């Protein structure tokens, strides 16, 4: 994370407005700055990781207006006005999101570097409502690489939350 401040930005910087984890932020960003770099370097939100910087590993996954995206592939300027949720915004120790709880419960990580991306991706997957089986979870999570190979537990955790949310849905109906 870098302490880059507004003064060190080039004259090309443009003003944008983002809601990040529920807080409205008015920011100056250079047009070539990715959302990932903005989050990590300007906003100090280092939970989102840079695994490949090419949209190929999923470590940088965040939610943009509720949809998952590889933030290393998204230029921050084009998301002017968007609502961004990062792993930090999903929940913090003491007040964790059910998906975060499930990842702990199922030991769904080893080194943990892919974990924030996996969790953001999983939260969006549940909201998308298109995964109903383990096979579908695996298919729709295949953009998030875990080099430690914790896949069984990752899928277990997601299945767990999926089960809870469908039970909830049934209860509500």
């Amino acid at each position, binding site marked *: 994370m870098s302490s880059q401040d507004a003064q*060190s930005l080039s004259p090309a910087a443009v003003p944008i407005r983002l809601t990040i984890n529920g807080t409205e932020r008015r920011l100056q960003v250079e047009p070539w700055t990715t959302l990932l770099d903005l989050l990590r370097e300007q906003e100090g939100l280092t939970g989102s990781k840079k695994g490949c910087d090419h949209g190929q590993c999923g470590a940088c996954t965040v939610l943009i207006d509720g949809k998952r995206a590889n933030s290393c592939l998204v230029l921050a300027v084009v998301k002017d006005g968007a609502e961004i949720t990062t792993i930090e915004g999903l929940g913090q120790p003491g007040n964790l999101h059910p998906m975060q709880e499930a990842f702990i419960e199922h030991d769904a990580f*080893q080194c*943990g570097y892919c974990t924030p991306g996996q969790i953001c991706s999983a939260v969006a997957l549940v909201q998308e409502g298109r995964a109903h*089986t383990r096979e579908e979870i695996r298919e729709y999570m295949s953009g998030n*690489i875990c080099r430690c*190979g914790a896949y069984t537990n990752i*899928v277990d955790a997601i299945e767990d939350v999926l089960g809870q949310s469908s039970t909830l849905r049934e209860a509500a109906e």
Partner: protein
Amino acid sequence: MDETVIQDRGISATFSRVPHSEPPHDGAIKGGVARSVKHDSAPRHVAGEAIYTDDIPELPGTLHLHLAMSAHAHAAILSMDLDAVRQAAGVVRVLTLDDIPGKNDYSPFFGDDPIFPEGLVQYVGQCLFAVAAESREAAFQAALLAKIEYAPLPAVLTVDEALAADLDLLPRHEMRLGDAAAAIDAAPHRLANTLHMGGQDHFYLEGQIAYAIPGEGDDMFVYSSTQHPSEVQHNVAKALGIADHSVTVEVRRMGGGFGGKESQPALMANVAALAARLTGRPAKLRLDRDDDMVMTGKRHDFRIDYAVGFDGDGRILGAEFDQAARCGYSADLSGGITDRAMFHADNAYDLQAARVTSRRMKTHTVSNTAFRGFGGPQGLLATERMMDEIAFGLGLDPFDVRRANYYPAEGGKVTPYHMEVTDSVILEMMDELAESSDYRARRRAIRAFNATSPILKKGIGVTPLKFGISFTTTHLNQAGALVHVYKDGSVHLNHGGTEMGQGLFIKVAQVVAEEFQIDLDRVKITATTTAKVPNTSATAASSGTDLNGMAAKNAAGAIKQRLIAFAAAKYSVPEEQVVFLPNRVRVGNEEIAFPDLVQEAYLNQVSLSAAGFYATPGIHYDRETASGRPFFYFAYGAAISEVVIDTLTGENRLVRADILHDVGRSLNPAIDLGQIEGGFIQGLGWLTTEELWWDKSGRLRTHAPSTYKIPTANDRPDDLRIELWDKGYNKVDSIYRSKAVGEPPLMLAISAFSALTDAVAAAGGYRVFPHLDAPATPERILMAVEDVKTRVRALES
């Protein structure tokens, strides 16, 4: 199975689980040994709060570094004009050979890894110079302005080319047991063949990174994502021309290592420290992913030629293995890696007579390095191929041929390096797994399926595993730990091991909690730093827990002994009557809470801090005679895999894998199961999808996950059943009789490779044995199928 649907998902997972954190049954501590305690960083991992090196808040003035890379595999550098680089916007300093005050080397030992080249480059991607700038982007853009004049030289790129050119990097080595050639000649059956196997990129999800902060005088503090802080420390000191004591290296955790952060991080740390020294500013070097894949060493690819003589039951009478490895341009750790390949040529089999030779070939490619298994997987793969081929030739079940050759449980047989195998449990494990996985019936069913399925073919493969535990360089088998007990009874734990996700920190903390009989949350796990525990070995060779666990136990034990002596004297009871109970100590008839006893001891001037040390006893290896006892013990594993291939496309799937693994008495079953599954999946990647491909000019063309296929959630077997072997027990006095688990499970994936070979053989009606090299990508499978069919047609005409 529907002929048209290869993506059949089979049965869903039935992954065996161990219940979490013991019910706090009265009196027991929370989180001692043998419990499935959560990873210590769990709550921080899921909240994005776990700090990795790149997440450490940067100090004001921090510079960013970029390394410029050679465009040629082998060339003399005639000139480097860096004026434009120096003048580029944002550039603060350009670092070249002339700027190094100490030694221009970041090698672990041999002095042959220049930080910056001295007139010669030896692989595409070799570091040429570094740019320190206000931003990473500025450093990168500036480096493009360099004008480098090369005079290309002939490049040797592959093992076969190096063998043809007789280009050995390191001396050859040979192990002999009896007269293998004579045994093979006299055997009723003989066969010989060759197997090529590819390397593997680590693709630790967190890439290489170092962050150096200059201190007063010579002092340098370096955060490094490294499995080997002591070596990074020594390397930085060497490059800066200062004493080791001026350099402190720290790492709290890595985002994966897998061996790729053993020797490689020294380059990043050296350059960052050099920039920090020259500019007086903090300096950070984080490799871009593609650069990381091009610049840093990988698993060695091998060519192994084997010859074997055997009887009609498949009992081996003698075997010869000629191993040749692509080491790349420098020695790095290749000596130890190629040794370990030799040490595993026997796998779990009593070869009776053996000759194993090893050639360590020099090539103009990146210097290959440690990768989970450290040569063992390569040695083993050829042997397993050989077992399949013997079974095929005799028309026997490969399970039975292997079974006829295991080291006996009662001992008495020796390896090709003359070590008696006294702890062999492989026969029992394999029999158990065959039973629980219904192997025999499934093999019959597969044969029946194949008889009526023209396009899809199934295969099944078995792999027994014996893996030697210890650094084969004997002196490395040592570790240190530092334990403080504070006045409130809380404990600070530090040791030389590093955490890369394997769960080392929590296991060692469990050991300390157990020793003091205090709840695990009273033990604070702290970052690895050369300032607290010096002269450590790399966290490698699966030895992290064995060594550091023992050292920590010794440190805690020393403090405990002082507390016992103090309590005995103070309360006038014999020492035997001072007993550590959960969170309290019984002294005679009285029970004292642990913190209270600690407080009393402090007031009575008892030292509550201790350094612990451990060295593995009784291991040695003599290179001259190629004999000794290089391993403290062996870890065992058993795997059976079932695959299906599409003979028209080469597409394939692992549909089921059954694994039984020996971790002795597990320190933490949840962590161990994770290691087994993760290792297996990584092995699967190595053998089926991960293909490193260099073009004719020596450029790696698979340098990103777009072209280099790493297993995803979807590549995991549809049905994966993993069990810890419940009879597991370490015969030697290891930490709580556990066994190391980091590397061995990777090799269990060889069962999938065997299964693929079996499926390809089915495409030719089991008439000819397939030629299938690793990795068995769809392309290779398709070519092997075509080859098998051609050979069968030739037989028929």
